[in-house]
């Protein structure tokens, strides 16, 4: 497992966020093109449910390394502490971004 001060942590959170974001848009677009859920269902569709589950999983995936980097940062030397703390914040804000962008699946119909 990568050390909490590894520089890759600085970008891994946003990379995961970006992949999730692209996946959400792609899945939504393709499903709406191929097999759109009925508009009368509003936001209560299987598609919204799956997108929500995906959002929650990715959020969790981002929160765990945030916690790990933050916990480890106290014991590290200055340069490594800098990397670990910035990484923890990046993961945390990536998780917050995931929740924020994913929230509309609770209220909007998918294919209108």
């Amino acid at each position, binding site marked *: 497992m990568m050390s909490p001060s590894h520089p890759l942590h600085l*970008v891994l959170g946003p990379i995961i966020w*970006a992949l999730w974001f692209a996946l959400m848009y792609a899945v939504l*677009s393709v499903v*709406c093109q*191929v097999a759109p859920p009925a508009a009368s269902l509003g936001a209560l569709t299987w598609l919204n449910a799956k997108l929500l589950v995906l959002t929650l999983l990715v959020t969790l995936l981002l929160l765990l390394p945030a916690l790990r980097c933050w916990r480890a940062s106290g014991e590290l030397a200055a340069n490594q502490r800098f990397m670990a703390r*910035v990484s923890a914040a*990046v993961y945390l*804000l990536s998780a917050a971004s995931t929740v924020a962008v994913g929230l*509309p699946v609770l209220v909007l119909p998918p294919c209108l």
Partner: protein
Amino acid sequence: MTEPVNSPDAALHRRFEKVWGNLPSWGALAAVNHTSIGLRFMVTGMVFFLIGGLLAMLVRTQLALPGQEILSAGVYNQVFTMHGTVMMFLFAIPVLEGLAMFLVPKMIGARDLVFPRISSLGYYCYLFGGVIIVFSLVLGIAPDAGWFMYTPLSDATHSPGRGPDFWLLGITFVEISAISAGVELVVSILRSRTSGMTLATMPIFCWYILAMALMIVFGFPPLVLASVLLELERAAGMVFFAVQGGGDPLLWQHLFWMFGHPEVYILFLPAAGIVSTLIPVFAGRPLVGYRWIVLSIILIGFISFGLWVHHMFTVGIPQLAQAFFSVASMLVAVPTAIQVFAWLATLWTGKVRYSLPMLWIFGFLFVFVCGGLTGVMLALVPFNWQVHDTHFVVAHMHYVLVGGMLFPLLAGFYYWLPHFSGRMPSERFGRWGFWLTFGGFNLTFLLMHLTGLLGMPRRIYTYEAGLGWDWLNLLSSLGGFVMAIGVALVLVDFVLHFRFGRRAEANPWQADTLEWATTMPASSYNFISLPEIRTRHPLWDNPQLPQTIAAGEHGLADIDHPRRETWGSDAVTGEVRAILHLPSNSWLPLQAALLLALLCISLLLRSYPLALLFTIAAVLVLLRWSWHNGAHPHADPVDEKEPVDPPLHSRTLDGPGRWGMVVTLMANGTLYASLLFGWFYLWTVAPGWAVPQQDSIARWPLLASGVLLTLAVLWYRRLVARLRRSEDLSLQAGLWLVAAIGLGHVVLLLWVLLDASLQPRALAHDSVLMVMLIYLLIHSGLATLLTAMQVVRVRIGYVSRKLPYEPMVLQPFWSYTLGVFWLGYAAFILLPMTFGALAVPLGGQ
């Protein structure tokens, strides 16, 4: 003449200058030094800025009063298209890259960028590409479809002239320059910082430039691909964006804005870097929240890629998808706000000196925050629909770009002026220039928000009286001319200060960063000796540093050899790992750029035999360039007296060349990913997507070709692994074998392409397939050719177990070629088979 500031001993200076200096007279065209190239980028960029500004004045003159016919509709279209094109592609990006190229080595304690010849190539590509684009205006055949060249307006049917071709080919040419500078800046920042400079102590400006450069690497390839595809559609009749045949004009919009939105932040980040550098200096205290700012830079770098669809809210995508992009567009305001609060906190807790650069910084804070707020308004879908394609959007864009880029840029120019001339600007001229620019700008664009809210569409060449827009347009035009006078005053001040400016004293602004320890005006080598740096504020913590550097009391002060040397350091810790020996003056970049320019012109003239000739010539020059590396006599032949601890980088396994290759492949991979996106997009969404009834490609020979490629790559990896263990027995024979297997793969792939019954002029499906095959062929051919060259270099003695560097550089390219081959095979052959695309066109209507 007065002695330059921070100047070393004259004899020492002469010895360094002999190694690092440019050639005299016309020989200066062969310069590769970052100071010269950075300055050239900036001066050329400012010339294009003047051209773009003149075009803006024409626009404002035309719109000042209703019903004017000063410009015809056609000319007006060319003028506004070229204004946007020149400002975005020929001014903003290059001038910021030029500033970064000029400053970064001085800030990180290096003597040059790591790929100096690429700097020079980038400059010439930019210059020639820019001249080609602007020349279309002189000929009266400039592009006229808007700076984002939407299809179908820009296709051959609706724009049959050569205008879009100038745009597509010229911009692609210029983007070679931007991407090459991006690669160079990334690797330089990561691998050539002076001893001990960790990522945590790196100047904040370099964090911004690192993010900007990476964003260029990932952001520009989608537009390069889109431009190539549209040019293929226009010139060769292939189908990508035309609905007939299965294309989709919206694909252009996606690809354009995948570039276009990050572009805004590519412009903003370096400008914000200037702000974060200047504010602590004029507040007399360290930047508040360095770590928070690094965090916000990283987040902006990523989130800005998730906003592209907010330019497409009106094209008919589902509301939920719009909501994703709407929220992401609002989210990007968070890291931006973090920076604004950090700047305010720094100002609040410091003792601010209101010098000339700070005026521009305050102007930036006001204008950019306003632009950011209208940006949040535009992120709201219903409001966006309401003001779409109105002058409100034009006003917002100018608030963000002029406020977020031009104001900090001018602040930076004033701040670093002593580096260009050794002199200080005129406070009086400068203040007049600022207030006229600031006042004129707000008069023009603040009112333009209202013009847009009153419904005036953008890009109309005239309008009727009585619609409520008359007085607003008149005042906007008046403001435009006031702003032009302000900018003219600033430029006059810049020019005059070279003659009349007060001579700068050492560190005139009491700054903290290392560039103020260099000679002013700048020398070719930056530092006589390279200091160890363990702090974010080297000049505040050790004010004597410039003197000890000039006295040669730090590292690499020896110049009893012809090598241009700087430290090669660890990407994270900054500890020295090697000595980078950098190329000296070279004509090769100019030759290569000239041939590429001639290729570009041949394509414009649709003279394809000539284009082929220039392509071959350019490839030959580039191969010659690659030949002059490593232990070649023109680079650094093996010498018993050469340093061993640390060693020269070409004697190691992991120098900047390998990093440069990997970063270049990231850009290349983004281009390929964009092609895959295009394929899946057309397949699933294009309304007229159609597929041929029979297989158009021979699958089994393609598979066999892939097997050969896999064998070649596996064997190559084995050779490299042995080289890592210092074993070079039968290296030459092994490379021969790899080249031979690679050649077999290329021949088979070529046969598949020639044998394929593709109809690229009829079907988008076949057009994309053809592009994919050509892409694979180019990569495989190049990998094979470069390996064959390695065979010869082993024989001559340029590559061996003591010189293992070059095979290490080539290895990622082979691996990449293998990866894209199988990815392509899966996406273009296997997936359609699995999902039955050959029989039932998805999304076909």
